[in-house]
């Protein structure tokens, strides 16, 4: 009888332990998922429409309209590869490059494609104020 009781208690503890393990691992997966979603959210938010960017960062410190084919160099890498070589060489795509002071350490540059007076955000770069490219 004692043996049956011991076996019964042991199996109850084993079940509890298993369920705890499952819960813990679920929690970990949930936390990981949330972290990934958060980071995606932050990335999405940085590709802001011009008005939203002004609301967020204030007035731009620099802006220029430029032909896509005239944008090159390490600095423009993020916008450069958003287009095919044919598009880059077409001389028909204009880009508005706008830079804001993001915080005390960084600038943010967002590139907008200009189409029928509409500005579509295409790429951005957050860069340290002390960086050269």
């Amino acid at each position, binding site marked *: 009888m004692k043996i049956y009781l011991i076996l019964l208690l042991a199996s109850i503890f084993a079940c509890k332990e298993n369920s705890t393990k499952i819960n813990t691992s679920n929690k970990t997966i949930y936390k990981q998922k949330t972290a990934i979603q958060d980071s995606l959210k932050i990335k999405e938010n940085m590709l802001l429409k011009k008005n939203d960017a002004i609301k967020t960062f204030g007035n731009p410190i620099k802006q*220029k309209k*430029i032909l896509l*084919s*005239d944008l*090159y*160099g*390490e*600095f423009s*890498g*993020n916008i*450069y*590869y958003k287009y095919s*070589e044919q598009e*880059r*060489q077409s001389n028909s795509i204009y880009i508005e490059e706008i830079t804001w002071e993001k915080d005390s350490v960084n600038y943010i540059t967002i590139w907008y494609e200009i189409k029928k007076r509409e500005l579509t955000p295409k790429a951005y*770069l957050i*860069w*340290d104020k*002390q*960086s*050269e*490219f």
Partner: protein
Amino acid sequence: MGYYSKYIDRMDIHIEEGRGTILIKQKWRYSWLNSMNTSRWTYSEKQKFHKEVDNLIWNSWGEHFFLKVRGSSDFAKRNTKKRWDVNFDIEWVTYAEHWKVNVTKYPSNQVGIITSSVKWNLKEITLDTLDTRKRKIPIGGNNYHQYPVAHEFGHAAGNSIFATRGMHGDEYRSSSPYIRDRNSIMNAGMELRDRHLDYLIRQLNTMITNSSFSIY
């Protein structure tokens, strides 16, 4: 015949009078980083990367600049007719570095540009494994070619707006007076210009009293 050295934060400068050479030596301490889906750096991969960097810098920056020296010092007088070579060397170190260099490994089939940069004030360089490959840069119907690491080294050699007042940096930015000089190594090409030695000549001219170096 003497040997003169200057040790500054971002490089060592050696003047070897006997051979008529000037050596600019930078010590780089690498941090080996990985992008997603890449294996850990092996020692032979690290060696290969460093060798490529060193060779590209030596070949693209070295044996190009020739200097002369003038002045009232004995050194200047006895070297009036000499044509000085300038060479550039990168040493891989694990401590006592001039520059901290963060290198990220990317898959060999990676498409696009991973932004590389130099922070002069922090003595920090950010590179990736695509930077030792020749890059085609099409502009206005013409193709230019550049090894990105040779361009980034240009910043570390003093072509930085942070180096001294009035110094020049990236030449492809609209604010640069050299934006049209697209073949320049600090623009989209691989060609060196006399101005790319401005910072180093300033440093050389502090090394030997009454001796002034300039382009030959």
